[in-house]
């Protein structure tokens, strides 16, 4: 079950490891979050008339 040590091709320490793949993935996630937020707020929510307004 465990993949602890089997199939390891090399050992990489903290200082020699740059998580570029993680940065790329998380960058895409950031963009998705941003665009989806804007869509949900300004299209789905504000376009969903009737909206509760304060006493004017």
């Amino acid at each position, binding site marked *: *079950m*465990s*993949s*602890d*040590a*089997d*199939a*390891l*091709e*090399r*050992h*990489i*320490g*903290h200082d020699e*490891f740059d*998580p*570029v*793949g*993680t940065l*790329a*993935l*998380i960058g895409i*996630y950031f963009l*998705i*979050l941003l665009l*989806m*937020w804007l869509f*949900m*707020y300004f299209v*789905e*929510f504000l376009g*969903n008339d009737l*909206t*509760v307004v304060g006493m004017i």
Partner: protein
Amino acid sequence: MSAYIDQFPEEAKVIRSAFYASFFALALGAAFGLIQTLHRTDFVRIIPAEMYYTVLTAHGVLMVVTFTIFFLVAIFTWAVTTSLDRGVEDIRFTWSWYGLMTLGTAFAAIAILAGFTDRTEISADVLFTFYAPLQAHPMFYVGLVLFVIGTWLAGADWFRSWWAWKQENPDKRIPLPTFMVLTTMIMWYLATLGVATSIIAFLLPWSLGLIDTVNPTLTRTLFWFWGHPVVYFWLMPAYMMWYIMLPKFSGGRLFSDPLARVVFVLFLLLSTPVGIHHQYLDPGIAEGFKFIAMTNTMFLLLPSLLTAFTVVASMEHGARQRGGEGYFGWLGALPWRDPVFTGMALAGLMFAAGGFSGMINAGMNINYLVHNSLWVPGHFHLTVGTAVALTFMAVSYYFIPQVTGRRLASKQIALVQVVMWFVGMTFMSNAMHRGGLLGMPRRTAEPEYAGFQFETAIGTVGELNAQIALGGVLLTLSTLLFIVNMSITALNDRDDDLPSNTIPEPLSGPNEAPLVLDNLKLWTAIAVVLVIFAYSLPLASIVERGGLFGPGGDAFPMFLELADSFGFALVGETLSAMVSSLLETLRTVV
């Protein structure tokens, strides 16, 4: 080096029992889930509509209280004993909290399931949230109290282990898994004060007829005082698995131990002072309090966003050690044939999506769009229903052999099972989110109305229902595969080649972490202060408006009518008047 059952045979028995209790709840909860998903989408209706709510109460309570928390106590016991490398201090004490939790579950479950028969007056058709003035039989509330006390004692057990270990290792850092358990439990002690007060001071005496009325806004607010942190109580064990098990199964090491500690401290501080975000649309609570709750909630996103980076980086580390290359090519080097890894990775992916719908839920005014719509169960089936549940099922394929010493029945079926869960949830949850945006309500047996129809921009209501039902069926099948696989494993041959029960060292170890992170007293104090800031004024205002026992009203249904309630009502009014005058005095002084 050996398997857990060889290291801690006595503890392994308790852990096993807790796993079995949680799987039993999962199986029963899944059966109810299937009835619901087919009923509300109008594919198969085998129960009368009003019984839907009994089924829904059972599904909710069994899944999010029994399944998750029994699983949690199992892996927390594993985490503390493994990382401190010492058994529990007194195994009889460990069995006693397990017994109390089981007894509590039995009480609550009997009260709920009695709702299926007319032979007894007992029922608890109040759903997981048990909002007054809906009333359950006292046995339901007693069961919840016993269960929560059981978890308190479990926490005491783990603290006791840590204190004993600290005497012998005064200069060592708290091992990360134990640190995670302790911070989570402090959060839990703080959070359960809310629900304990709600039940012990109000709902239980009210169901016994000792007090006439309750303040629905007050008990509801106390429920959410606990009701939001409880989601982190479900999530923290899953996070623990992602931090310490996912790197192990990816063939890598945790990217950063100090950041993991920071994340758990942030959860301890921010999980509780946010519950009012469940009450954005409640009357009787000022907008300002809602805004404060929102700000806290938004910052509570931070530890989860940090977790996403650390956990993915740990996986990437494993993938690169296994020979992975490129910006995205390393993903292919991950052990996708291992159900433990794949289940957890897919759970994490779904949590990324659930995180987004959670961000919408957290927004104060955008809550008008989604509040109490089908969007909300769509959201939490991604979080507790997948991020937590799928992670738990995936790691079971590692843990059950570890605590039974038996060989896993089928790794292939396990892999099919975790993927099937992911596919089923994709169908169900996506359709639920979309349905919610059309205004379809949650918690509704037959959402078909005589006076209007839901308007769809894309697709049809029929198509959404078909996706929900299909997803629900796949999820039930997946649960069935899991239960069968686990049952055969429990009865399987002994496995003499079990991997040893170890946790790999992090890349950036605990000694890099500032000492202050291990100062649990400091974090507890700050957490308490934040809760006081967030809750004292709203609670005072609710009590001042409606009184401790509310502005009147009856129970639904009324279980007991007692003549002696007058005296208690008088005490209530006096108390309420005292609190009000105290408030007045404070205001004059200020």
